[in-house]
């Protein structure tokens, strides 16, 4: 077993090679910083490729009444006013620039008749707002950013004779620990998956862009990479996580056949005319329109159907309610015994439009169902149900810079791993624009932070040795527990007890079981050697999944209300008092998760006036309302 550790010196290390990571890296490199991109998978395989619907940006190409204020409003509404307003504001304002910029990198979005970027309707967005490429927008985004990085590397090659001189991608490399010098980030320690050899990156700034936590759930649309690495790295480095109780269960994941269980059916299936029916063939969504949305949604099937062709004079169909509402409705139907054979409901486009039109508008959906499941969506309905999709919670960041709060300095976060932007629920399409806007900001500010440092923080040898020991432990532990079994057990706890509908008793039970799992995870073992050993890799990921799951369970138990991606059966109402509270997790010296309450930042006056009083009344306390009126 080799004891040498490869060392690299960089200015900015970006952990994660999805949209946010790549965008951050581009910006750091453009700011003249030597940048490393660490990717757990091959370059260009990140989970961003799965995003189907599009990237939300108020370009106003399809409906000229759209602008950043409308987008901001929709985002706050979608997040049930728990969003960090400043992040929502920056996001709405900067998304158009970030999208246009992609065209200069070579992206080819679908076009309107006059040659502009086409935009489509999506749940929760008032106007057609999602820039898209068929239903493979995420792939276009990741490929575009990947190719932009290649283009920068070509410039560097021309200037220096080396492609890797200023920006380098470390493929199939996993970071297991952040290294600190006092409270400053000094580097990152990890291993090459291919060889199992260790690698140390010495860098004064680290951008976390590791995505989400979905692999802790049984039914999930997330890939194996989504083990909450960034969340856990941040916690261990002294940063804080917020809103971890808010997980988005995408309402329409495939539930049959099992090979594709969890895989998403894009919301644009509904945006383009798909309807949800229960086993009695009823369009049940009309029964589930909450009061806060009553005004915007159609009451009859006739009105809803007219909306597809005449959106100005009709209200939208209730199938386009925000994701959490749809997920809850499906859950209720299934629980009431009106579900499909596999425990979902039916999503039908086949009776709604001609086959050619379905194939043209939803090409990769059609393709995916045909190839993966042998289901022809032009002929029969799909069986769908809620699947764990996105975590709204994440690293608590300073809105403008993406710098992690807490006691650590030099740590930045962007994309799904950061928290606050989406509040309690993310609107479809806001994720791709989020990672562009805040990826750029994190890269820019990480580079600026490096400039301000008088000297480079130093990595302590003893920390490196400790990190190496922790990483090797599962390999040398005789008779250690099977990591796959442990993962399945963790998924069962989270899926069954901290799932879409939560109860105090179950959450308490979950916390107890997570404690038991913690003992077992500490005793995990891995057969085989260091070279490309997935069992070992999973064994190392487990502790991340576990600590993040604890944060989710703890926060879910604490928050006694239902809001967005957090539904408590014992507290079914949204509470204006709870809207003022963020739940913030940190890690104690002992490794215990510490939970505290912090106030939600107050929205600036000129932003709050964008909302009507009647709408504010649904979310704010009387005291807050009279404050607003006083202004």
């Amino acid at each position, binding site marked *: 077993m080799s004891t040498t550790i490869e060392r690299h010196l960089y200015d900015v290390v970006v952990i994660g090679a999805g949209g946010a990571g790549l965008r951050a890296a581009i910006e750091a490199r453009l700011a003249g910083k030597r940048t490393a991109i660490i990717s757990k*998978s*091959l*370059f*260009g*395989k990140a*989970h961003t490729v*799965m995003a189907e619907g599009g990237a939300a940006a108020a370009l106003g190409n399809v409906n000229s009444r759209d602008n950043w204020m409308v987008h901001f409003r929709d985002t706050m509404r979608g997040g049930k006013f728990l969003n960090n307003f400043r992040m929502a504001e920056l996001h709405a304002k900067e998304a*158009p*620039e970030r999208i*246009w*910029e992609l*065209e*200069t*990198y*070579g992206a*080819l*979005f*679908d*076009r309107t008749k006059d*040659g*502009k970027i086409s935009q489509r309707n999506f749940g929760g967005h008032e106007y057609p707002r999602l820039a898209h*490429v*068929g239903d*493979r927008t995420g*792939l*276009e985004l990741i*490929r575009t950013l990947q*190719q932009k990085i*290649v*283009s920068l*590397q*070509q410039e560097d090659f021309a200037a220096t004779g080396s492609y890797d001189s200023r920006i380098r991608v470390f*493929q199939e490399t996993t970071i297991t620990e952040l290294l600190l010098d006092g409270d400053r980030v000094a580097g990152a320690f990890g291993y090459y998956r*291919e060889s199992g050899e260790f690698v140390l990156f010495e860098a004064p700034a680290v951008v976390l862009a590791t995505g989400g936590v979905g692999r802790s759930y049984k039914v999930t649309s997330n*890939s*194996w990479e989504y083990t909450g690495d960034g969340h856990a790295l941040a916690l261990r480095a002294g940063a804080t996580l917020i809103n971890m109780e808010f997980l988005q269960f995408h309402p329409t994941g495939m539930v*049959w*056949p*099992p*090979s*594709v269980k969890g895989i998403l059916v894009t919301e644009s299936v509904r945006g383009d005319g798909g309807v949800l029916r229960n086993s009695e063939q009823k369009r049940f969504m009309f029964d589930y329109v909450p009061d806060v949305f009553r005004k915007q949604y159609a009451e009859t099937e006739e009105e809803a159907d007219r909306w597809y062709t005449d959106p100005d004079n009709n209200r939208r169909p209730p199938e386009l309610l925000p994701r959490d509402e749809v997920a809850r409705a499906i859950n209720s139907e299934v629980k009431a015994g009106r579900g499909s054979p596999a425990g979902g409901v039916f999503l039908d486009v086949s009776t709604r439009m001609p086959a050619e039109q379905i194939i043209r508008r939803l090409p*990769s959906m059609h*393709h*995916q169902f045909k*190839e*993966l*499941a*042998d289901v022809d969506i032009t002929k029969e309905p799909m069986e769908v149900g809620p699947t764990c999709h996105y975590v709204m919670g994440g690293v608590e960041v300073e809105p403008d810079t993406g710098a992690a709060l807490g006691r650590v300095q030099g740590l930045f976060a962007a994309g799904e791993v950061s928290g606050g932007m989406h509040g309690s629920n993310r609107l479809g399409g806001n994720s791709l624009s989020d990672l562009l806007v805040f990826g750029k900001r994190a890269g820019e500010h990480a580079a600026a932070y490096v400039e301000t440092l008088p000297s480079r923080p130093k990595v302590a040898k003893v920390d490196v040795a400790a990190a190496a020991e922790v990483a090797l432990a599962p390999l040398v532990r005789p008779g250690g527990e*099977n*990591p*796959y079994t442990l993962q399945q057990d963790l998924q069962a706890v989270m899926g069954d007890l901290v799932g879409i509908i939560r109860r105090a008793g179950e959450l308490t039970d979950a916390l107890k079981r997570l404690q038991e799992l913690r003992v077992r995870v500490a005793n995990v073992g*891995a*057969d*085989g*050697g260091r*070279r*490309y*050993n*997935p*069992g070992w890799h999973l064994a190392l990921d487990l502790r991340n999944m576990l600590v993040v799951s604890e944060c989710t369970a703890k926060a879910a138990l604490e928050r006694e209300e239902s809001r967005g991606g957090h539904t408590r059966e014992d507290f079914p109402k949204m509470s204006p008092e709870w809207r003022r509270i963020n739940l913030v997790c940190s890690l104690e010296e002992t490794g215990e998760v510490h939970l505290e309450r912090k106030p939600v930042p107050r929205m600036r006056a000129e932003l709050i006036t964008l909302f009507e009083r009647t709408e504010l009344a649904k979310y704010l306390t009387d005291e807050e309302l009279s404050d607003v009126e006083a202004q």
Partner: protein
Amino acid sequence: MKRHFRVWRGDAGGGDLRDFEVEVNEGEVVLDIIHRLQATQAPDLACRWNCKAGKCGSCSMEINGKPRLGCMTRMSTFAENELITITPIRTFPVIRDLVTDVSFNYEKARETPAFAPPSGVAPGDYRMQQVDVERSQEFRKCIECFLCQNTCHVIRDHDENKPAFSGPRSFIRAAELDMHPLDSRSDRKEYAQASQGLGYCNITKCCTEVCPEHIQITDNAIIPMKERVVDRRYDPLVWLGRKILRRDQLETRPAPSSVAAPPSSARLPASAAVGPDGHMDIAELTAPLQGGPSPFGDDLTFPIAPEELLYNHPDKGNKP
């Protein structure tokens, strides 16, 4: 139901096929079986995968010898008692088990000149028609599974061709940029021909056949590029014209009178009849004579009288 699988295990130093009996349930795909193998019998079995939905192109492998994505190969497509053999993709060096070193593809991608944005067009001012972007969009569907690269016989079992040949994945990238309505480089085809080894491809369409995204790699990218490269480089008439006259002379007519007389009594070779644009008519229909223009000029008739032929025998002491 248990089924019989043979999976290649080993590394760069060698390996062999191992037999496994694995539980298979209704509606599963080959990747599900690999995962079950990892969870129950072979925890260190190396295999790449990410999305498990045919969108990321990670789980490329050869299933019963066919290059496939593990996540898109349904178990129901095999006969009930069929033995299923899973091996790593063969064109790239094995790292371990089903994982191969695909860095070749990334190196070739890095050599292909990037999109060149049009100068003077501000972000937000890009205007393109749907019909124009669709051609490139087809190629941008590529999920980089590299099955096309793996199956291409130019490099499969022919490592010696790898330096000169970039493979179908790179060709569709070149075609995509060539057809991009706003790309400001105009030498994509020439680049594909000169630097990517487009000429090695002899259009057997194996790449198209294995593409999980059903991109018409050969018909829509390779053949059109080949045609246009041929159109410019190998058109016999243009080629001959180039042999007779230097390019600059071809393009600035009239040129023949300025050619110095050869040391002979023979007449000057007349250049081909070219139009006002300096090019010859390609199509017979538009030419004044049936049979197309003579590359030797219309004023020359064959056979040429012997005394008009320019010929000096090398042995007769006639060296100039």
